[in-house]
């Protein structure tokens, strides 16, 4: 039983990690607590539902990711960038992000209804590996998440991403050195949102999707980013797995209703223990 629980946790943790890594890329570069990420997550799944009427499976995925990228760029161009230019505080951008989230979710609910949408991925029946029963979609989720997270890790090793890290560290200095910070913001918005979109499509194939699922997963993702520490992708993935484990244990041994509550308790505990998160850089005390 425990092996099965651990496997399920690994899959759900990696899906959460995809959303969290996306949130991290956006949050660390734009400094916006981007709750509208939840709306883009849901939009990813609904865009796929729309595209599958017109295109093949892969075509529908590519089409929906393009739509998510465009929506993210529009949010950045029309909302976040103008607010950043006016040097609006974080509270204002947070409220604006909630506004965007509510607008998009209500629009999706209006167009598609509030009921859960289910899709049969048509991948055949489940099979057993030792004591673990694996549903084929879980395998797809696992492989896709590992490949994408691995890809992002590789991207962080490039010279281009060094500029992103520079911007995360000191935006003004980066722009003085000729880093195009506006372009990086757009790239990160698009890339981060597409990761959420893919996670949503994978979730749609498994447990279905309704317009209101975005906020819960975004809050868990935000907790993973904070616990992970200082824009660390590795830390974010580890934290997402830890949160998934906690949520599985809570669901199994306590009650599903306590899932989110205990996630936030974990956040408080980690922050009290290590303000800088799980993975942090060595700094002088006065620099922290």
């Amino acid at each position, binding site marked *: 039983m425990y092996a099965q629980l651990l496997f399920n946790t690994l899959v759900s943790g990696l899906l959460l990690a995809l959303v969290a890594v996306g949130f991290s890329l956006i949050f660390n570069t734009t400094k916006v607590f981007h709750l509208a990420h939840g709306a883009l997550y849901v939009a990813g799944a609904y865009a796929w539902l729309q595209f599958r009427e017109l295109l093949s499976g892969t075509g529908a995925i590519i089409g929906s990711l393009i739509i998510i990228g465009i929506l993210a760029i529009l949010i950045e161009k029309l909302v976040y960038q103008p607010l950043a230019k006016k040097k609006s505080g974080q509270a204002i951008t947070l409220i604006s992000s909630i506004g965007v989230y509510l607008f998009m979710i209500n629009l999706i609910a209006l167009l598609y209804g509030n009921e859960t949408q289910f899709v049969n991925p048509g991948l055949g029946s489940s099979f057993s590996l030792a004591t673990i029963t694996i549903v084929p979609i879980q395998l797809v989720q696992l492989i896709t998440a590992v490949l994408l997270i691995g890809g992002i890790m590789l991207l962080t090793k*490039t*010279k*281009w991403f*060094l500029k992103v890290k*520079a911007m995360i560290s*000191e935006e003004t200095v980066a722009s*003085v050195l000729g880093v195009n910070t506006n372009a990086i913001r757009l790239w990160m918005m698009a890339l981060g949102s597409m990761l959420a979109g893919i996670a949503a499509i994978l979730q749609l194939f498994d447990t279905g999707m309704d317009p209101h699922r975005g906020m819960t997963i975004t809050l868990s993702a935000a907790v993973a980013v904070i616990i992970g520490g200082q*824009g660390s992708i590795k830390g974010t993935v580890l934290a997402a797995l830890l949160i998934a484990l906690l949520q599985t244990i809570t669901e199994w041994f306590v009650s599903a209703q306590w899932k989110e509550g205990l996630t936030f308790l974990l956040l408080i505990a980690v922050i009290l223990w290590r303000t800088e998160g799980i993975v942090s*850089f*060595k700094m002088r005390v006065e620099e922290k």
Partner: protein
Amino acid sequence: MILKVEHISKSFNGLSVLKDVSFELSEGTITSLFGENGSGKTTLFHIIAGFLKPTSGNVYFQDENLHHKSADEIDELGIGRTWQTPRIFKNLSVQDNLLLATKDHPGERVLNYLLKPGIIWREETNRKERAEKVCDEIGLARKLQKTAGALSYGQQKLLSIGMLLMNDAELLLLDEPFAGVNAKMVDAISELLLQLKERGKTVLLVEHNRSKATEISYKVLHLVKGRIQEQEGITP
């Protein structure tokens, strides 16, 4: 002359900060700029580095008028500046800070990692070797992989000078390089500046530590109420 400042004046909302400032810097020299707080030293630095445009007058670097150049273009031409408080990337390693100061890396285009991996690898190796050399020059040889935020304040100042060297700056504008650092570090920084001078670099520094700055300077400029008074110093 590597730098010519000709009749620079600057006003903010009618308040005159710089009044007809003119001076020249010879190649391979160190010049100190002294002045009380609010005398216009930083404004003058901002104008030379392109962060501010003068109300009137011109700045020439290697006979090129900088009037229509942006701060980024001036940086490319070979004028680098440091700030009173070191502006470095504190979350990144010393090596990454130095690498970020270099320009036009083929790896800035992610697709090149697939199309031209060999070129990227060679370029990366060369730049890392250079970063190591610069790190050695600025006395941070054993700190290459350390997080910049973990360095002492004085070491962070050395790193910001190292970043200018990585960028091949010919003229270094240093804003209070000796401020807030201990005597040992003041000696280390002044030793580095003298070495740079020997290598043909030109340094203009704004400083409050007059004795140390005068000791290493070829020329001393006094800025009093926005006007310059020039004094010849002794070449060390």
